[in-house]
């Protein structure tokens, strides 16, 4: 599942998956602007069939945060 997450983020930010890690964030990825972060959350919601709360959206600073939110929603990311 982690791979699925990375592929999705890589596609939206238009960066190779190999360049992504838990610390990837708007600071480390230039294309991660505010619009792309809406787009990312939007597509995460439809991909994982869930909905993030407004607090979760605000608190999302990097990929580790996204993983944490998904886990809280009961979505298990292997590897």
């Amino acid at each position, binding site marked *: 599942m982690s791979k699925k997450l990375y592929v999705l983020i890589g*596609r*939206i930010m*238009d960066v190779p998956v190999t360049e992504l890690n838990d610390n990837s964030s708007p600071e480390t990825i230039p294309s991660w602007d*505010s*619009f*792309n972060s*809406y*787009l990312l*959350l*939007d*597509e995460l919601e*439809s991909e994982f069939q869930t909905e*993030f709360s*407004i607090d979760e*959206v605000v608190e999302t600073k990097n990929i580790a945060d996204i993983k944490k939110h998904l886990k809280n929603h009961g979505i298990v990311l292997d590897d």
Partner: protein
Amino acid sequence: MSNEKLSYFMNKSKSVKDATFDKTIKIALLSSFTINGFYETLRVKMSEHQIDGNIHVGAYNQYNQEILKNNSELYNFKPNLTFLMIDTRTILGEIFYSPYSISAEERKKNIEKKFLELKNLINIFLNKSNSKLIITNLHVPTYSPYGLYETKTEYGFHFMVSDFNKKLETEFLKNDSVYIFNFNQFVSKYGNDNIFNIKQFLFGDIKISLDYIPFLADEFLNYILASLGLTKRCIVLDLDNTLWGGVIGEDGFDGIQLGSNPQGNAYVEFQKYLLALNQRGVLLAINSKNNLEDALKVIDDHPNMILRRDNFSCLKINWNDKVSNMKEISQELNFGLDNFVFFDDDPVNREFMKSSLPQVHTVNLPKDPSQYSIILQNLKGFDTLTITKEDSERNQMYLEQQNRKELQSNVVELDDFLKQLELRVSLKSANEFTIPRISQLTMKTNQFNLTTKRYQEEDIEKLANNIDFFVGCAQVIDKFGDNGITSVYIINKQNKKEWIIDTFLLSCRVMGREIEKAILAHIISDARNNNVDKIYANYIPTQKNKPIENFLSNCGFKHEKNSWVIIPKDDFKLPDCIKLIEE
């Protein structure tokens, strides 16, 4: 229809290069809210139709300023089409949330004021720009603080917004430069809860959720395709399991499904929607492997058949392969293959068509016939910006064409045939009645077109009002009926001694009848009467205008440098078979 997510378009647009296609159009996008992603989506979708997308995106909620300011980026960009997206929240302001903080009378005044502001803004835009304007109407909210009492309230919240929409539509109904996109209906179709995403709104003032931007772009693309004249003109239909259920050759006249039961009703429903398209000018044709007699018996005599023989401009009911039939239909109707849509229930036939003739739009039909009419209703590409008298009478004209062809096969000499047609060419100048059709012909005529210059209605109007130009058109009538306005010519008379033919075109419908020579004879005699020494003309080759390639040399024009020239003083004969009428 859009199946891809917005991120697909965001990425794909990076690989869309500028200036790769012949077809170009300049689009301006203005809005009262965030429309990020729209630019990218539209660019990709336009490139899929081989259109160069030159798009200007107005700054966030700056549409007022861009329209009011002289020399704004918008005006310097000189768009052909401008889309203005406004939303109910922005227009109503605080009243959107508290409509019942004021009286009915005040609500009414408020709407009048808001409407007047927008109307003035639109008129300013029209004065400063030649662009057509497409403006979204307002979404009528589904919520009301009054709840069920809403519809018992005088000039209530929902009524206010509907009234605004009605005013907008009425005001610009007759204005050819302004089109209202029914955004309210768009929301109805996909659902308010889908189109509006509260989080996206709170975070980024996004009022059309990101998932639905590709769908809205599809709607806007229709205006672009229509404006460029890239319109589908003919639906080609299979018969068995497409227009009726079952196989006529096996199940027989009484065994096929057509009305009488749910499956049979699905085919009747499909035919009813086809008929409506036919009535607005979309031609229908049949491409079916069948015994002609069996099929015609159903078409002529089946009590539940909606489409009858007269609804079809071309019948290819035989045992030839469908691709050969399609090519013949294209030749007989004189349209390029990209003007055709193909409906066939058999996936093998569809695959054969797609791989052999990719220009034809082959529709992916599901096995379930109940979906046919829905698919047809959602099919894009038939839209035109105007529906002229010629459009609604097109079917009749093509039937007359069939009669002419029958006459032609009985007559040996072309001259005799043309004489028997009793051709009359009525010449008209550009005026409010003819301008929409003149523009339409310049936009979509490809084959018999010397220069293929495309002119929007506004352009034609300008040329018609310019004393240095003459814009003329011709209506062609024969003993089988009226072909309508089917030719356009534009003469540049700036140099009093040397005229230039700017545009000369003939609809494929009336090709091969010496009409072009009759019109040229008129232009030459007009030049002679005005003591013009020379008439210049150019042939600009395109992929499609080969039929007019030798027209100038055949008419006695001589090649001179990069142009063609004829001396009006010299004799030029009006073809015997044509009577010319000047209006």
